[in-house]
């Protein structure tokens, strides 16, 4: 029976601003919602708060110099962006990457993908209140980053995958380190499954919230785990295999309903598949062709000797350059010397080496692909990462455009939250894995 107050109460809508600086907005997205009580009637998503002018900056840098900018696009899986750019350039230049370098690239890409999914699920769970999951997954991520740091030198933004190959070979203890990372990640996955999979609160917040149909997902241009959670099987690693993915066995997990829980589940399964790929890569990688030698001479003696004659003896380089000695170049970089950094032994002991080193880095020289355009894509943590490069024959790109997967995913956010409650915005936004560097470029 309606009371007087229910008949007389006015209903107005409230405009709520979940501003750019918000704990659950991953930093840089503004969602303005029109609320009737707790229900969202209408919303607007405003992006661009992390627009750092990547594309314009790249037009002013040489092809080699802009590599660090590609790291900072999807900064949770930076090696995958490096790889996308390197593949686009190798397509344009027609380079042949050595076998071992390809395996190394796949290994590090998959470790990056693991760290991307770990971070996404950790953040999503933390925002739903499961702080323990966040701590566990960041702990596992540290082990993965230890492996990446020992090989590439940096934990996150590595600039390691270069045009023509990789910067250096894997570090000597990589098998144990990767084994430890895989084991710790599997343990964390088991724990998190136990914490979240049948957890009534988590299920209540993520089951049937943020649901999207298959047709809508395709119409919005979704790719990656978000699209696969609706049941559409599209993975660039399977449909257009690059590097050595056609020789590896892995499955592509699919969801059914396209809701937040499916996106979480697909990511958890993908972590397991990535670990499977990592184990296969370690088993199948061709051995390093540089024999470990103890007859390396110190650098000052090498430079002194080079003034008298060409010695060709291996030189003991600084520990920073471990893995990028000249003897390893056949494993890690394409043989075309005009597009890769010449080895340090050559640069410091021979005139031709010095000249090629100088010419590689000097503006106006270095990598100059033929005129034309290319589009190459890889499977990033969020979907298809594509690079569209237009070259006019000079040492700088005429136009470099990155196809950002989470730009398309985020364009659907307004539809996903319409008609839902305010509390549903949080797990929905978390499960879409918005990465500001990629969204706004």
């Amino acid at each position, binding site marked *: 029976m309606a009371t007087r107050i229910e008949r007389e109460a006015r209903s107005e809508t409230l405009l709520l601003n979940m501003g750019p600086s918000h704990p659950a907005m991953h930093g840089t997205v503004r969602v303005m919602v029109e609320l009737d009580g707790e229900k969202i009637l209408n919303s607007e998503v405003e*992006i*661009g708060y992390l*627009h750092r*002018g990547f*594309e*314009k*900056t790249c037009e*002013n840098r040489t092809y080699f110099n802009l590599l660090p900018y590609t790291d900072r696009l999807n900064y949770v899986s930076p090696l995958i962006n490096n790889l996308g750019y390197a593949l686009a350039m190798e397509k344009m230049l027609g380079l042949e990457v050595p076998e071992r370098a390809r395996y190394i690239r796949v290994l590090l890409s998959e470790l990056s993908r693991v760290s991307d999914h770990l971070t996404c699920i950790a953040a999503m769970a933390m925002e739903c209140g499961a702080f323990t999951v966040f701590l566990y997954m960041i702990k596992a991520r540290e082990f993965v980053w230890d492996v990446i740091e020992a090989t590439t030198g940096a934990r996150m933004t590595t600039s390691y995958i270069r045009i023509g190959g990789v910067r250096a070979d894997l570090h000597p203890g990589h098998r144990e380190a990767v084994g430890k990372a895989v084991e710790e990640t599997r343990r964390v996955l088991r724990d998190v499954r136990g914490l979240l999979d049948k957890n009534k609160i988590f299920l209540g917040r993520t089951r049937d919230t943020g649901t999207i149909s298959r047709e*809508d997902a*395709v*119409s*919005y*241009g979704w*790719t990656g785990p978000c699209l696969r959670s609706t049941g*559409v099987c*599209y993975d660039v690693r399977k*449909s*257009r295999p690059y590097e050595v993915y056609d020789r590896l066995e892995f499955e592509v997990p699919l969801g059914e309903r396209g809701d937040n829980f499916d996106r979480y589940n697909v990511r958890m399964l993908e972590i397991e598949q990535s670990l499977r790929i990592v184990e296969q890569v370690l088993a199948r990688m061709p051995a390093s062709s540089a024999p470990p030698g103890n007859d390396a001479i110190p650098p000052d003696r090498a430079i002194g000797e080079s003034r008298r004659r060409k010695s060709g003896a291996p030189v003991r380089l600084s520990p920073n350059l471990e893995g990028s000695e000249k003897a390893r170049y056949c494993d890690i970089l394409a043989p075309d010397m005009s597009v890769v950094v010449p080895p340090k032994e050559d640069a410091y002991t021979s005139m031709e080496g010095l000249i090629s080193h100088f010419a590689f880095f000097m503006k106006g020289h270095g990598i100059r692909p033929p005129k034309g355009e*290319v*589009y190459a894509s890889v499977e990033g943590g969020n979907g*298809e990462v*594509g690079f*569209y490069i*237009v070259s*006019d024959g000079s040492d700088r790109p*005429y*136009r470099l*455009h990155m*196809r950002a997967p989470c*730009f*398309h995913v*985020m*364009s*659907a956010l307004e539809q996903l939250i319409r008609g839902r409650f305010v509390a549903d915005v949080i797990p929905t936004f978390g499960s879409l894995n918005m990465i500001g560097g990629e969204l*706004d*470029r």
Partner: protein
Amino acid sequence: MGRENLKAELDRLFPEDIKSCGGPPGEQTIVVRREVLRPVMECLKSPAFDFCLLLDLTCVDYAAVEGTFEMVYHLYSLARNDRLRIKTRLPAGDLSIGTLTGLWKNAGWLEREVFDMFGVEFRGHPDLRRILLYDGFEGHPLRKDYPLRKRQPLIPGRGD
């Protein structure tokens, strides 16, 4: 559908409007006139060709070189695992083209980004405004005549 079949089919449906078709293997490209872009896109999205995914939509500024801007669209067909690049030229003095919102839902945001960065006007777009830069920003940064370091701060600095 192979490259020859696609070109033949499109030539049959749009005689004299498809300027060229080519490109290295795996990168099929067609160039169309901008007036027929929307009908060609509708045809490509239809079940006959089934390019259901609009992968990307961008623009290249060739104003200094050729006096035109070039719109580049990348489409993908899930069923046939086929990619296609469609290009169309816009004269630098008349930067407008029909919108693709209504065909693909992500076209809305993608076109807003091209409008923001290049100033291309999309006729028929329901909500054409800036997306990556703030509303009062003057100019379109990705054009070649916009200097890289020309800053437009929103709030005055501490030293001012």
